């Protein structure tokens, strides 16, 4: 009871509301990530009580991850790295004039997914964290490959082209300093390239700029954005009805998301892609994916918000950050005199409960705040298309620059915009390339560090129990579909 009262007191709830509105704003702007939103809210939160301060951090991370989906859906520009998957079915729905439907579902699923993530955090944090500790290079290598196998799923129609796109992404990911030897690869002496191709400018270019180029090359006469004024207004109750029908999709994605978030070294972005892939792989009508299937909207958005709960698990249980957001959160906790680690549950039980309470509340409050965010964004789209497209170009440039104050990244964005534009003309899907860029280091570094540990032997990649399970899972993804198909055919021919 005390907890509820302390959460609802005005000096907690108002800062949290402010932070959440701020998060919607930051997440919706390309180039400003959820991590940045949290980093920006921290200096303000220092002046608050620990409960209000941590509540602000939670609120801002939840809303910014959601609102990254808004520009991804309307304009195909992911607002945050975690919204990459929303450019698939969400954007296709928007093209059909169902953008608000997609985003309303997105909003509700973000909130529910976030809630599931938090509930899992409350219920099974310690055992899940201990399980995640079992993962080392061998397991992460397979997990990375498992993620890559999703690229086959992400390519509509042509598996070969999807594979090509992913391999190109992997090749791009080798640019920069090699962490096992410290040798700079393909940098041509340019220090800007030493950390590799910036993932965010690449993504903004590949999805956003290529879309602009595609639009404008149709000539001025045809410049048109998808209509956003919908004949059918969607009420919250209807949205919930649709979600109820797809509840399994949501729950599955939220579990996948929380689990991936709990693994140190994988965050909301990977969670969203994997959830999308898993959903498509297990769905009956998987051909619809990529053409505006609402399952393709629900799965990634539920997973990325659930992953936020997941990333707090290693942070709270061991005091080690699972991603960049929790790295900042840990710093904040130290400032409040909290000691993250196993003792936090006994030493600061009350505060931990309070934080859990705020996390639940934040997910509920997200619905009205997010709704206003969608409305506000939709207003922008009522402008003339040429104006919106020019605005997109400006925001893409400044967003790419802002991520690490580097002009070089504007040119990276342009290069990827052009690559994306050409790739689409050749019917090569873009999403697998992004997946390759994200997962490349995970696959390569873990394979090589794993081999350092074994002295060059591959044995441990197959003999460790979790490794073996992951390996079999990948086999299932690659061979599962065709095998089942063959069996069915064989069965049918026998019958007839």
């Amino acid at each position, binding site marked *: 009871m005390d907890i509820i009262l302390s959460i609802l007191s005005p000096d907690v709830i108002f800062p949290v509301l402010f932070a959440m509105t701020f998060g919607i704003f930051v997440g919706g702007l390309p180039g400003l990530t959820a*991590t*940045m939103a*949290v*980093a920006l809210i*921290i*200096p303000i939160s220092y002046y608050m009580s620990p409960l209000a301060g941590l509540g602000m951090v939670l609120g801002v991370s939840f809303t910014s991850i959601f609102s990254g989906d808004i520009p991804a859906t309307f304009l195909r520009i992911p607002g945050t790295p975690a919204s990459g998957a929303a450019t698939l079915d969400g954007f296709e729905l928007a093209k059909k004039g169902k953008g608000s439907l997609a985003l309303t579902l997105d909003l509700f699923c973000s909130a529910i997914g976030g809630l599931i993530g938090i509930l899992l955090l409350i219920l099974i944090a310690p055992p899940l964290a201990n399980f995640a*500790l*079992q*993962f*080392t*290079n061998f397991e992460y290598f397979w997990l990375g490959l498992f993620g890559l196998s999703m690229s086959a799923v992400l390519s509509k129609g042509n598996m070969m082209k999807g594979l090509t796109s992913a391999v190109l992404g992997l090749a791009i990911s080798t640019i920069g*300093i090699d*962490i*096992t*030897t*410290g040798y*700079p690869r393909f940098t041509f002496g340019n*220090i*800007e390239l*030493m*950390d590799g191709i910036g993932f965010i400018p690449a993504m903004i270019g590949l999805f956003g700029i290529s879309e602009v180029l595609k639009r404008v090359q149709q000539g001025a006469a045809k410049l048109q954005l998808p209509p956003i004024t919908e004949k059918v207004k969607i009420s919250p109750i209807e949205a919930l009805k649709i979600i109820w029908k797809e509840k399994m999709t949501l729950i599955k994605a939220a579990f996948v998301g929380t689990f991936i978030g709990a693994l*140190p*070294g994988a965050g909301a972005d990977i969670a969203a892609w994997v959830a999308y892939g898993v959903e498509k792989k297990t769905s009956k009508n998987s051909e619809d994916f990529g053409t505006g299937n609402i399952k393709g909207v629900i799965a990634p958005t539920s997973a990325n918000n659930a992953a936020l709960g997941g990333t707090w698990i*290693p942070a709270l249980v*061991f*005091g*080690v*950050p699972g991603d*960049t957001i929790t*790295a*900042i959160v840990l*710093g904040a906790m*130290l*400032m409040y*005199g909290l*000691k*993250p*680690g*196993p*003792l936090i549950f006994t030493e600061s039980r009350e505060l931990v409960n309070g934080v859990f309470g705020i996390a639940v509340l934040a997910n509920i409050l997200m619905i009205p705040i997010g709704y206003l965010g969608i409305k506000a964004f939709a207003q922008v789209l009522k402008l003339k298309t040429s104006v919106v497209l020019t605005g997109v170009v400006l925001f893409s440039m400044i967003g790419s620059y802002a991520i*690490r*104050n*580097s002009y070089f990244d504007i040119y990276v964005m342009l290069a990827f915009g052009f690559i994306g534009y050409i790739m689409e003309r050749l019917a090569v899907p873009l999403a697998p390339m992004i997946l390759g860029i994200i997962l490349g280091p995970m696959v390569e*570094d873990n394979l090589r*560090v794993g081999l*350092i*540990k074994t002295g060059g032997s591959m044995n441990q990649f197959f003999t460790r129990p979790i490794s073996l399970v992951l390996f079999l899972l990948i086999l299932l993804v690659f061979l599962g579909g065709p095998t089942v198909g063959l069996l069915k055919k064989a069965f049918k021919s026998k019958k007839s």
Partner: protein
Amino acid sequence: MKKLLVFLVIALIASSLLFSVDYPRKAVSVICPWGAGGGTDRVARYVADELSKALGQPFTVVNRTGGGGAVGHSAGVYAAPDGYTITLVTLEIANMHWLGLTTITYDDFDYIAQFNEDAAGVIVKADAPWNTVHELLADIKANPNKFFFSGSSAASIWDLARIGMFSEAGVPVDSVTWIPTTGAAPSIIELLGGHVDVITCSIAEAASQLDSGQLKALAVMSDERLQRFPNVPTLKEQGINWSAGTWRGISVPKNTPTDVKAILEAEVLKIANSEAFKEFMDINGFGIKIRNGVEFYEFAKQQDSAWKSVLELGGFIQ
């Protein structure tokens, strides 16, 4: 044309005179070569805030990350030497040019003041069989090639700290396997999961795991015991003459006006000596080490040659 040139020269001189009496007249950028949210960033933001309060103009932290610190340090060196871009330098300025990652060296900066030094710790799991660093080293000598060490990437400061310790203690440098990771935090996870045996990283980074009893520190590579960890013996008291760690301070591009440097040095030293700063650093587990501009320059110079010899020991450079 000539007239214009003369005018420009006069304008430049006039403006530099103006600067010297009145600094800062506008916002100052503080370049942080490491990412938002990390330890260095936190220190940078604190110092920038205090400088804004003291000097009445905004000091804004600009994160210029990449290349293991190379990008930020280069940006700091190549900025206009007018005092409106200052850099939070870290240890990497003294070793990355040896690795060929950049052409800039410690000598490309003018030094304002140092305020931090974090020593490396020798950290193992709480249930590990060793209780002193000598037990550990003896075990390594008896079982070469058996143990995994980690802490960060290969040739990083924490790898070098280990190499220096081995060489001082007479243990062959390649008798353990260094497992490269992307930083201290992932190596702590590897250690907690039992996938590596020992980590040598900043003892401050492992503070919460040490406090909660998940990990134990066998030694710290500082000259004297740390206030924050009074029970952890130094290598020196155990007869191994080696200390190593990272450090942070403020620097400006070469040829910055002397008056500007004097103002900055006075203010940074004032901040570094304040109670509030001590409290901030304690909470975050950072160590305090204060050196003024001249001492800081000498220190950077000494570090530059010290790390070169360790890099040679490790076989990273010939």
